[in-house]
Each structure stands twice: as C-alpha cells, then as structure tokens.
C-alpha cells in the first residue's frame, strides 16, 4: 500500500487563521461554563482572540504552504487586518445591541469568529478549493447568525432566504471550479495562470468556469443581478449581524474576485466586458433603487450594492500600474464607514425590535448630538464628500479606471455617485430638521468605544491616507 505523503505546513503562514479557528473551538467549550446572563464574557474572550490575531499579522511569514493552497503576502496582511478590525468592532457592537434586544447568546461571538476564519481563508486562499472552503465556512456561519434572533419571524425568514440563495450561489461556484479544473488539470491559482488554454474547447470550458465562479462570488458581494437577497436579508437579520456581514463578507468576496482577475493576468481582458457590465449595473441599480427606500437598513443595503459596483471598478482598474491600491483602499473606507452607520442604527434601535425608517432620524440632532455627528460623518463618507475617507476611495477608484482606459466608466461612476448623494443627504438633513419626542438613545461603554474608533477613523484616514495606503501599495 502506497504511503500518503502529507504536505508540509508552515504554521507561521497561517498563523492568523490558526488563532481565529483555534480560539473559536476553545471558546465553544468555555462558553458552556458561562452563565446565560454573563455572555459578555464570551464577547470579551472573542474580542481578545480577534485582537491577538490582528497583532499576529506582522509576525506571520510571507509565503505559500500546504501544497500551495494557502498564501500570505503584504496585501493579504492589509486585507486580513481590515477583516479582523471589522470583526473586533462588530463584537463590541453586538455585545451591546444583542444584549439590549434580549437575544444575546454565546454562540453569536463564536459564529462570528468562525465566519472571520472563513474570510481570512478566502483572503489567503491560493487554490480554488481553499477559496470554496473559505466561502462556505463564512456563509454557513452567517446563515446561522442571520437567523439567531429566534423566535423573531423576520430573522428566521431572512436566514432561510440567505441559505437558499447562498446554496444556489455555491452551486455556481462549484460547477465553475469543476470546469476550470477540467480545462487546466489543477486547482492552484498560480499553476492555472500558467496553463490557461489558448484554443479549442478547453478555452471555452475555462472561461465558462471563470464566469460561473464570478457568479458564485457575485452572489456573495451582491453584484447586480445577483443582489436580490441583499435588502431582505439585511433588513431581517439582527442589525449587529447585518453590520458584520455587510463589511466582512464583502471584503472577503472581493478579495477572491481580485485573486481570480489577477490569476488571469493579461487574459483578464476576456472577462473585462462582463466585469464592466456588472459594475455599471451594480452602481446604477444600487444607487437609484436606494432613493425609494424608507427603511434605513434597506437603504444601506442598496447603498452597499452600489458600493460593490465601485469596488468592481477598482478591480477593473487594478490591471494597471495603480494595482490593488484603489480597490483595497475603497474596501477599507467602506468598512469603516458602514460600521459607523450601522453602529448608530443599532444604538438608536436600543431594545426596540421595530425596523427603523427615515422618519426615526428626524430631530435626532436635538436629542443625540454626538450620535448625529457620527451618522453625519458616515453618510458623508458613503456619499464621498471630502474630507472623509469615502471621498478618497471614490477618487482613487475613478482615477484607476481612467488610467486603465475606461474613461466612460468614470462618467458612469459620477452619475451613480450623483444619484446616491440624494438619499444620503436626505437622511443627513432629516437628522438636523424638526424635533422629536422619542427618548434619548444611550450606548454603553463598549459600543461608544467602537463608535468613536470608526468615527475617528473616517476622518483620520481621510486626512492621512498614507496610514493605510502605504500598506495597500506594498501589495503590488
């Protein structure tokens, strides 16, 4: 009987992943010992694990391991940091909001860690199998998280919807992987890049495979026309979960798309018309349909769709000299901003289970000036108004596509951003006009800290972009 040779593992390459999955597993046991009304201890432990993983980033080794399936490099470092930062902030938010809503469970934080591990695996994956594994880990944890507000019906419904659509998307992805494997005989991205068929049926198979994989990831990052689930799931899921998935799964999904595009190299121009079409549709549909929304969470769902279109522009631009800077900076900006916006919404919800609408923002200035200021910053950053971080992200993306020779896409982006300005500014000015009888919203120390961090980030990174762009640039 032949011996099965296990590939060698460089643990320092997968250090962050090990910390996250390892602590999730251990926490699962510890959580059993923590009484139901003390679950914030689980939150604290999960937060410590996340911060430990964040600190471990610079100590990880660049390289590729486990039979070329997992890699770590300087651009991975920044992406992993964005993901872990988002997780840390989300845990802080969740431990306040879930508690107020009476739906706090220890599993929440463990599932968040597992989803984070999946995201890290997506970001570090250098083989199609790892990408699939990462996506599924992330998705399964998120399906459960979406439905965690049991027995709230909206949450159950959203979870089921997300599960069905997600399974559908995963089907596309697996079939795409199979076709690509059939055409090239390998699953490792770098080897596929060297073996892209130039003629014949294999070439057709290969690009069909790539197209199907794009569809699979397109569901995850909600590109139009694969976005239908987004508003319903965002609205139905508990807000801390919405917040977490709106940033984490988008960042991770886009990193996978970027990995595919980078793998194609010069051949990327075969799929660039598809990417352009998706980007245009996503930007325009997201920002136009959002105008019609009254629910804040639905509005932000469409806003996140529109932002996905902008990131895709950055991905298109990344084939040129400017590299990954534009999309990665945009994702970082989006993460900070969206966390701030959802953080304010969670604080406003308090113990209230009702879905907040635009009318609930009325007169917020007169009762919660600090929350209003943070929300205003977030909305301005989402609209791309300087000096916030969102503005620089938008500018970098627009100049990246212009540099790649797609000037018309820059014009479409300008149109989309003009439409989007309307609903962001309407929400912003609502907060400053009129008065309201509603009681003051209060935030505990944990979510106050989280809100402060993201609000300062929106301004500080906007004014001092070199703080993260140097890292993103290093990923070239």
């Amino acid at each position, binding site marked *: 009987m032949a011996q099965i040779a296990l590939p060698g593992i460089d643990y320092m390459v997968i250090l962050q992943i090990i910390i996250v999955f390892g602590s999730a597993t251990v926490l699962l046991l510890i959580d059993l010992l923590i009484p139901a009304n003390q679950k914030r201890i689980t939150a604290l432990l999960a937060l410590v694990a996340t911060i430990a993983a964040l600190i471990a980033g610079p100590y990880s080794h660049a390289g590729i391991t486990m039979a070329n399936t997992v890699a770590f490099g300087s651009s991975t470092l920044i992406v992993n940091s964005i993901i872990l930062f988002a997780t840390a902030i989300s845990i802080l938010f969740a431990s306040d909001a879930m508690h107020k809503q009476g739906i706090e469970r220890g599993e929440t934080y463990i599932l968040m860690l597992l989803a984070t591990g999946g995201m890290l695996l997506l970001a570090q994956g250098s083989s199609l199998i790892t990408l699939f594994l990462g996506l599924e880990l992330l998705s399964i944890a998120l399906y459960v998280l979406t439905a965690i507000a049991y027995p709230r019906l909206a949450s159950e419904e959203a979870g089921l919807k997300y599960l069905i659509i997600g399974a559908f998307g995963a089907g596309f992805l697996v079939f795409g992987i199979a076709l690509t494997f059939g055409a090239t005989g390998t699953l490792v991205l770098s080897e596929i890049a060297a073996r892209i068929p130039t003629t014949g049926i294999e070439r057709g198979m290969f690009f069909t495979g790539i197209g199907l994989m794009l569809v699979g990831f397109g569901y995850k990052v909600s590109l139009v026309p694969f976005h239908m689930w987004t508003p319903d799931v965002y609205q139905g899921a508990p807000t801390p979960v919405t917040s977490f998935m709106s940033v984490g799964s988008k960042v991770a999904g886009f990193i996978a798309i970027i990995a595919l595009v980078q793998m194609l190299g010069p051949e990327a121009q075969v799929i660039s018309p598809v990417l352009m079409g998706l980007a245009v549709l996503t930007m325009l549909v997201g920002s136009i349909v959002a105008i019609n929304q009254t629910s804040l969470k639905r509005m932000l769902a469409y806003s996140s769709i529109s932002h996905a279109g902008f990131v895709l522009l950055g991905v298109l631009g990344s084939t040129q000299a400017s590299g990954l800077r534009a999309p990665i900076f945009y994702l970082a900006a989006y993460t900070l901003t969206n966390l701030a916006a959802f953080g304010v919404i969670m604080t406003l919800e308090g113990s209230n289970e009702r879905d907040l609408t635009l009318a609930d923002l009325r007169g917020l200035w007169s009762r919660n000036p600090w929350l209003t200021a943070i929300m205003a910053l977030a909305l301005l950053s989402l609209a791309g108004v*300087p000096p916030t971080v969102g503005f620089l992200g938008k*500018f970098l993306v627009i*100049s990246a596509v212009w540099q790649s020779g797609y000037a018309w896409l820059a014009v479409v982006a300008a149109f989309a951003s*003009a439409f989007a*300005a309307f609903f962001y500014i309407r929400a912003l000015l609502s907060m400053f*006009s009129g008065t309201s009888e509603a009681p003051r919203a209060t935030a505990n120390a944990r979510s106050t800290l989280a809100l402060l961090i993201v609000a300062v980030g929106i301004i500080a990174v906007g004014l001092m972009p070199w703080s993260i762009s*140097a890292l993103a640039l290093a990923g070239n």
Partner: protein
Amino acid sequence: MNQLGFPLLSLLIGTPLVGAVLIGLTASNARSLQRTIAWIVSIANAALAIYAVTAMQPLGGYQFIESVDWLADIGLKYAVGMDGINVWMVLLATLLTPLALFAARNEQTHQKSFHALILVLSASLIGAFLATDLLLFYVFFEMTLVPTALLIATQGSGDAKAAAIKFFVYPFVGSVFMLASIAGLVVSHFQQTGLMTFDSVIISGAVLNGTLVMDPNLERALFAGFFLAFAIKTPIWPFHTWMPQAQAATPNNGSVDIAGILLKIGAYGMLRFALPFFPHAALWAAPAIGILAVISILYSAVIAFGQHDMKVLLSYATISHLGFVMLGIFSQTIEGVTGALITMINSGLTTGALFLIVGILAAQRGSRNRDDFSGVWLTAPTFGTLTLITVFASIGVPGLNGFIGEFLSMQGAWLAPQLGYAYVTFAVIGIVLSAAYLLRMYRGVYMGAAPEANAIHEPNRSELAVISLLVIAMIVIGLYPSIITSVSNASVSELVRSLTASSH
C-alpha cells in the same frame, strides 16, 4: 516655508476651524462665550487677510507658498498659495464672515451650531480660494456644501429641509463630474509627462509649453466636467434653480445669505482652473457660454422685477451680477478678467449690504415682502440714504464700485474676438433692467406715505455704522479702483498672457 517665515495661509484656513472646534466644545447655553469666540476668530482672520494684502508683492505667480506632501505616491499635496487674484477673494471672505455674525446678532435659536458652521464655511471657502493643488481645491470646494446645507436646514423657515437637500445635491452633481474630469486631466498629464501630480501650476504650465497636448474631444469633455461644476455653483442660467429656493428658505436676518454670497468659488474656479487647463476648449465654448451669461443677466433681471420677496429679488440680482462676471472671464482679456474680479468683490459688498438692510427691515416689520413697507425714508432718513447709495452701487451708477466692474467686463467682452459687441448690447439692457427692479423696490419701500402705526424707525448706531463702512468701501472702490488693480494687475496679466499664448 514662505518668505514671511510663518504659515500665513494655513493660519487663514486654520483659525476659523480652531474657532469652530472651540465653539463645539462649549456648553450649549454659554451663548456669550460662543459669540465672543466667533467674533475674536473672525476679526483676527480679517486682520490676517488685510496683512496679506499689504505684504503682497505686486508680482505675478503665487506668493506665501506652503507645500507639504499629502499622499506622496500619487502626487497629492497640501499646497496653498496667494496671488493678486485670490487675495481679494480671501479678504472678501474674511470681511463678510463678521458681517454674517453681525446680521445674526439677535438670533437666539441654534446659536451654537450657527457660529460653528459659519466659521467652518469660512475656513473651507478660504481654503478653496488658496488651494493650488487641484484635489485640495476640490476637497475645500465640496466642504463648503456641508456647513451651508446644515445652516439652511437648521436656521431656515418654511420647507427648509427640501431647500437644503436641493442646495446640496444640485452642486454636488456638478462637482462629481468635475472629479471625473480631474482624474482624466491628471491621468492624461501622467501618461504624457510621466509625472503624477495635482499641482495646478505644473499642469497649466504643461498646457502652456505644449508638453501636455490633449485631443480636442477629450479636452472639451474634460472642460465640460469643470464647466458643469462651476456653472452650477456660480450659478448661471439655466443651472441656477437651486439658489432662489435656498434663499427663500433662509432666515430673514440675511446672515446665511451673506455667507452664501461668499460662494464665488464657481466663478473663481472657472478663472483659475477651467480656463488655464483647457484654453482651446474654453475659446471654443466662449460664444455659447457668453450667450448663457447674457441670458443670465436678462432673465434674472426680468424675474427679479416680478418678485415681492426682497430676499428672492436680491438672489436674482446676484445671478444677474454673475452673468457679467462670466462675460468678463470668458472674454479672456485683461480688462474683462479685471472687471470680473471687481464685480465679484462688488457683488459681495453691495449684495451683502442689501441683505443686511432687508434683514433690518424684516426684523422691525416681521415681513420681507416689499408690499408691506412704505415711506421708510420719512421716519428713517439716514437709513434711507445709505440704502439709496447701496442700491445705486448695485445698479452700476458711475462713481460707485458697481460701475467699474460692469464697465470693464463689458469692455473686455467687446474687445474679445470670440465675443464682440453683440453680447455687450444685450448685457447693457440688463443694467437698465437692474435699475428698474431695484429702484422700484426702493420706491415702494422708502417713498410714499409712512404708515400711521408701526413706522420703521432708524436702526441703532452699530447697524448704521456697519452699513456706513460698507458704503465707504463702495465709494472708495468706485473712485479709486486701482486700490484693487494695483495688487491684481500683475497676476491678471500673467494669467491672460498664458491663456492667449496657449490657445493660439
């Protein structure tokens, strides 16, 4: 560091910002403290601006330059500079800031946010005037929208929120297209010269010496992005619809309007950026833009004639003035550009004074409808005299400031080969119409019999003193315009020379 040894321009931008932050930190009922901070900061800034005028050398090119890398790997800089053109815009902005505070002296509601927002607005305007880095200019240009929209939303009456949304979104739409154009311009410059920069001096220099040559269609498309942003912001017909609605919703005292007339960055940006970057496209589009400018002058004069709300009337008068500014700028002659510069200053001074006057009237009567007044002259003769001089200045009576600016703008348009006398012929009708609507307003409000009860009485001494100061400035500029031109000449002629050199 610049030749002064201290960062004058950053102080001009930073002082109001620091003031705004300090006001933000005060308790919301510490009214007198907020007021004191705002006054000290705005007067200190005006003093800095006056110092800048006196310290300025009458040379072309930027002075007091400060430049720090901002995002070095894409060539982004914090770069500010001052020359004979923007020094006047900065001075106007710093002088009108205390005027806006003065106009709001009796307001009690939202005092804290009002003072802080006015200072933020002032800082972003000054920043926009001083920025020489294109993206920095854009940052400040956009930043002006936020405080103004918030001022309208918090201070305004009626449907202030709708007006504020329109005020924000309409100019924002224009400026995102400018952002796309900025990207296109910078990328074109990068592709041809290998240098990634947003420095307006370097880019316009490359256009001038032919190292940056754009395809005519590309140049026109990029120019269109800049033009749209600046035409909406200025505003000129048919991009003006946000402005009267916004001014109808702002408070009666005129404070926000005075701040609003600071928004000369549209015309300034046209002169400073759109023309030097795209001289061929500007020359190509000049006849069409000239027609829009003339329509602006005539259309808004006709609409103003029918207005009963005096503030809305004044906002149309502003649009009419800005038509002359556009005509002067697109003449691309020394006379025209100087006329445009002086008209921008005048529009700030005279319209600012008129908004203050309407605010005083409205505070006594509780209405700003001109039909609610008559015979003010009989009970308030000093006020009436000062108003009359201001009205004359706004119409363009010789000997006062309005005349110089409009005359030079029209002279420039006449001399310019791409415009010519036909434009001037129609623009002159605009002056006649402005005399008609302003004098009709004056006659209705100040002449006739005074009402039996509740007659308008003389404003208090400080109010009269402030209006008198503005009137003195109008007379001084009217009689001795070289107080402006001696400082601006070198910069204007350098700008015009580079325009004509690169467009032929």
